[in-house]
């Protein structure tokens, strides 16, 4: 079976559902009509635009252009992380911790996938590299931003307890152990849940897409397994890095809590 190609009329039919939703919320005066319509329009514009851009990038297959696209993706992810923080680190650290750990984890895991298992030729083949980078980056970004937010909010909330321990002569890493654990947990729970529920509660999005596009279910399942491993590896590495860098930065070498290095948005 060859993949059924979608026409714009097919999309227009599917869009009826969004419009229906908008009409219903308008009828019941739920105040969501505008938001739903804007989100619907954004999906159309953003994804078609990305499709067009990728079409060009794939056709040109220029390493420089691919690198530029990857950099732009990193920049947007880093901005997203720092804007999701309730409190963030002052100065360049506010952007740097999220950006640094995300980039490191994403590059490591993507390289691992490219050279270890998928082995495309050339290794930077954009059809492989860009979607892979995108999905790994998105997951690492979520892991890192949830973790960072958990660290900074918990540290402010738990300040009396942490300083109480420090004042009795506990070193900074022992005093923050509990907090590191729970922050790491909140950063990794989504991907762990995703792995546990995969195939049982929902069919993962990528696998669904591949099956719809005509791939054999078992082959699609193998791809999905590989991907979930990559995503959990990336999210785990990113969250771990974020926890350690953040707790290191929020304390100093005299085992003091440095809440002055955090700023409220």
């Amino acid at each position, binding site marked *: 079976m060859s993949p059924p190609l979608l026409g714009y009329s097919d999309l227009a039919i599917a869009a009826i559902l969004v419009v229906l939703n908008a009409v219903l919320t308008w009828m019941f005066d739920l105040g969501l009509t505008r938001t739903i319509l804007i989100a619907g329009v954004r999906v159309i514009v953003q994804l078609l635009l990305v499709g067009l851009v990728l079409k060009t990038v794939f056709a040109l297959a220029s390493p420089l252009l691919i690198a530029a696209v990857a950099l732009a993706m990193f920049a947007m992810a880093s901005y997203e992380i720092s804007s999701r923080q309730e409190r963030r680190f002052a100065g360049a650290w506010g952007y740097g911790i999220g950006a640094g750990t995300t980039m490191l984890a994403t590059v490591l895991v993507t390289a691992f996938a490219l050279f270890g298992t998928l082995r495309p030729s050339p290794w930077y083949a954009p059809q492989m590299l860009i979607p892979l980078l995108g999905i790994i980056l998105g997951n690492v970004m979520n892991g890192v931003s949830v973790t960072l937010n958990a660290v900074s909010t918990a540290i402010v909330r738990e300040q009396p307890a942490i300083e109480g321990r*420090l004042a009795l002569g506990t070193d900074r890493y022992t005093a923050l152990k509990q907090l590191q654990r729970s922050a790491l947990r909140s950063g990794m729970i989504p991907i762990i849940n995703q792995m546990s529920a995969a195939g049982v509660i929902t069919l993962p999005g990528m696998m669904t897409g591949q099956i719809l596009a005509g791939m054999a279910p078992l082959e699609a399942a193998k791809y999905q397994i590989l991907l979930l491993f990559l995503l959990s590896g990336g999210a785990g590495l990113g969250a771990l890095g974020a926890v350690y860098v953040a707790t290191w930065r929020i304390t100093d070498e005299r085992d003091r809590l440095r809440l002055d290095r955090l700023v409220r948005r």
Partner: protein
Amino acid sequence: MDFALQAGECVSVAGKSGAGKSVLLRMIADLDPHDGDASLDGAACSNMPAPQWRRMVTYVAAESGWWDERVEAHFLPGTDFTALFSAVGIPTEALAWPVARLSTGERQRLALLRALTPQNRVLLLDEPTSGLDDENTGRVEKLLRNRLSAGIAILLVTHNPEQAARMATRHLRVRDGQLVEEPS
């Protein structure tokens, strides 16, 4: 500002709210970045790891923090709880309680108790009896006097002039960022 504290001596610190009394104690405990240095028997704070300094020069904040749900987890294993708890009027069973069950006054006294270790040389106490009735204030003061006679020095922030007179031999006041000694 510059001052010294002798072994077994209690010095009180008074001053308006926000004058910097707690800041002073936190500075001595090296809990905030600051200029200047403190030393104990000639050994400078900046020359030893901060945890080691704080086990000898121990700060007890006015507002206690708790890092576990159980009271027991805040004490070193091997502590003699029966004597310790009864000295401040808290039943020994409180050890098995969750922290959430403690009253404000009980928290304050337990936060002081958990800071008392054989390594203490100086105690930096921030209003250790502010939430207590007269009877329990008396118990805490007695406990502190025992520590003083064992050679421990105490820097005591208090809003209560009578307590300062009862406990301390010298009286300091924080005013406009300066530390001045007041006549007894």
